[in-house]
């Protein structure tokens, strides 16, 4: 394997394969803490369904949207646009190295969207009327919110779900050799529709992430001029792109750190470079837009809007700078910080037009209520819990090739976790393989 030898000299940590995280129990202290948060959130959700939105949230007549819509949907799904942004970079722009991150991107997107959509359903005051979504002639296609709701639902339920099936199928294939013919048939079918599914998986998020921006266009003057612009949809889309890069690459880095995997700096450098340039382009567009609209003066007033603006801009630019620097110096620390800062700044950006920079009325205020915060936190925890379970059960996290073999031998010599029935051997990859001989 000549290519392997030379590549090893250049990159000892090359991510060649997605490998499930093994050797770490699913249920640990962190998991239990998150599960407790999820349970609290579920109980509080039941209360919300009975009592209405007023008692559980800080939403009022002036601020009709609370953090459920503006944070869990607008911000968290932006972080969860990895399937879109990383996918487009990998599949459309042929950044082949990013394919290693694809499964992570897809998984994080899936959970971000799932939890976001759940909370969207909880936030709606009359959710039983959602069935109108099935009748396209009842849609109001002028409405950005219709576009968001419909597009997000279709996207999460069809392309995103389908894209997340391969790791499950792969596990089934290894799980039990009797399932293999069926699995292979499904896989073939999937591959034949993959181009259409993947194309939809890029079109639909492009549409709804930008429509999330278009939502606040209708609010007009009530959004502070530093944010309100006709380019809002494009800026929201751009923010989703670099934020999701941050989320995917940052999460991957964090997972590798926590579960002691090697990090492939080639892939991460590529991602960091792309993110940095995305950010520079985005910042350029944002500032040009502000300057041409003549709103730059308001950035220098001493009020909370200018404060939020500068925190956001500085966060994003320092993040981009750190990312670029980390590529040159191969410094993981600054790379991670760069992702965190730029994503945090992006989150503030997407959050502002609906809450921080939204002034419907000089006398009105909004601050989320405790129940509201707990529910929001609980559903984010749900996503994290799902992610933790999935990443330990399916091959998602990228790793060097030997990791796979380490994993296989780890499972071969371990007892199954649960001995309920012979069929449900939640175990490992390749136990029943007669061809396997012991050791590496």
């Amino acid at each position: 394997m000549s290519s392997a030898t030379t590549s090893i000299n250049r990159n000892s940590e090359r991510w060649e394969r997605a490998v499930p995280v093994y050797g770490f129990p699913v249920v640990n202290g962190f998991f239990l803490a998150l599960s407790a948060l999820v349970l609290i959130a579920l109980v509080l959700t039941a209360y919300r369904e009975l009592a209405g939105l007023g008692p559980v949230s800080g939403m009022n007549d002036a601020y009709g949207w609370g953090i459920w819509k503006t944070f869990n949907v607008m911000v968290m799904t932006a972080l969860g646009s990895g399937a879109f942004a990383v996918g487009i970079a990998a599949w459309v722009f042929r950044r082949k190295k990013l394919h290693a991150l694809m499964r992570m991107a897809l998984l994080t997107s899936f959970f971000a969207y799932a939890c976001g959509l759940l909370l969207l359903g909880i936030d709606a005051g009359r959710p039983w009327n959602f069935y109108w979504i099935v009748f396209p002639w009842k849609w109001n296609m002028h409405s950005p919110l219709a576009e968001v709701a419909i597009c997000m639902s279709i996207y999460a339920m069809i392309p995103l779900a389908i894209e997340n099936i391969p790791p499950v199928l792969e596990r089934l294939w290894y799980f039990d050799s009797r399932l293999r013919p069926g699995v292979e048939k499904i896989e073939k079918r999937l591959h034949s529709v993959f181009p259409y599914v993947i194309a939809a998986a890029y079109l639909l998020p492009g549409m709804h992430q930008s429509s999330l921006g278009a939502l606040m266009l209708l609010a007009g003057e009530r959004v502070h001029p530093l944010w309100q612009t006709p380019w809002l949809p494009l800026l929201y889309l751009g923010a989703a792109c670099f934020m999701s890069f941050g989320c995917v690459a940052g999460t991957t880095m964090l997972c590798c750190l926590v579960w002691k995997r090697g990090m492939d700096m080639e892939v991460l450098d590529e991602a960091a470079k792309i993110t940095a340039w995305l950010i520079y382009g985005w910042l350029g567009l944002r500032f040009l837009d502000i300057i041409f609209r003549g709103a730059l003066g308001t950035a220098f007033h001493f009020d909370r809007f200018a404060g939020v603006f500068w925190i956001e801009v500085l966060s994003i630019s320092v993040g981009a700078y750190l990312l670029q620097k980390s590529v040159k110096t191969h410094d993981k620390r600054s790379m991670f910080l760069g992702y965190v800062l730029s994503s945090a700044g992006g989150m503030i950006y997407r959050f502002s037009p609906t809450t921080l920079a939204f002034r419907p009325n000089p006398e009105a205020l909004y601050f989320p209520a405790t129940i509201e915060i707990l529910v929001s936190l609980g559903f984010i925890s749900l996503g994290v819990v799902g992610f933790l379970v999935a990443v330990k059960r399916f091959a998602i996290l990228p790793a060097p090739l030997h990791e796979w073999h380490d994993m296989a031998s780890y499972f071969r010599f371990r007892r199954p976790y649960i001995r309920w029935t012979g069929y449900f051997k939640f175990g490992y990859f390749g136990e029943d393989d007669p061809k396997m001989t012991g050791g590496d």
Partner: protein
Amino acid sequence: MAITRRQLITGIAKAGVPAAVAVTVGTKTAEAEVIPVPSAAVGLLYDATICIGCKACVAACAEANNTAPDTRGDALHQAPTDLNDLTRNVIKLYKSEDGSEFSFAKRQCMQCLDPACAAGCPFQALHKDPESGIVSWTADKCIGCRYCTITCPYHIPRFQWQGYNPRVTKCELCSERLEKGLKPGCTSVCPTGAVIFGPRPVLLMEAKRRIQNSPGRYYQNRVYGETDNGGTQALYLSHVPFEKLGLPELGPESVPAKTLRWQRRLYQYFVLPALLYAGLVQVIRKNLHGHEREALEREKETGLRAQL
């Protein structure tokens, strides 16, 4: 020579792009963002200079709509401090800092000719009647998303925050009373005639007549709602600036037309998205082939099943 499927699709895509551009640009003139005026538009004319703030209209509105009076303030009096889920109509007071200038302001739905609430409503729960122009809310279609509370430039629709069956409340010009030949509740009880009901053209004429008869009495000698926000069916006359009464200066273009122009054009007939989709499919298919080839190579090298 037989055309391959790929060539066919590529050809369509190539020809389609200019077509899409033409359609999009063409809609600029074709759609002609002219707002239709309903055939039998009715409305209100409120003259703030005559209003004495007696609030009879607030009580009459609740009665006409069979709504419980809003006594949540002091548990004694029907004294809502703003529009809310029980209040479709409220009298507010503008007082200048030094107390030298004041005016009452009756606030209720403006029944805009191009309502932003209806433009934003995902399933058309808020719908403008094509004849009377009354914007009404249908419980069966509403999902309670509260987008209407955000899009309305006058901040009129209000959501019911308590209970598991919330509704959206706003003035609907007492359409039930209109059907019986009665006038809306508020106009029936106004003691000074500060708010009157009638067909919109008639009200406009009356407003202009008043302006003409008393030059200098009314702010800028104009009636708010004639062209503001694309035109509204609730018209206002005032001696103080309209902004002081809470009526923002929005210009002659309606909020949806102003803000959703590009959104509407880009998604017109879904042509652009469809074309983009076709293009994406092509690109991805090509790249997928390359990706699969590489994966199979790696499969051979490593002996492990390819992960796609």
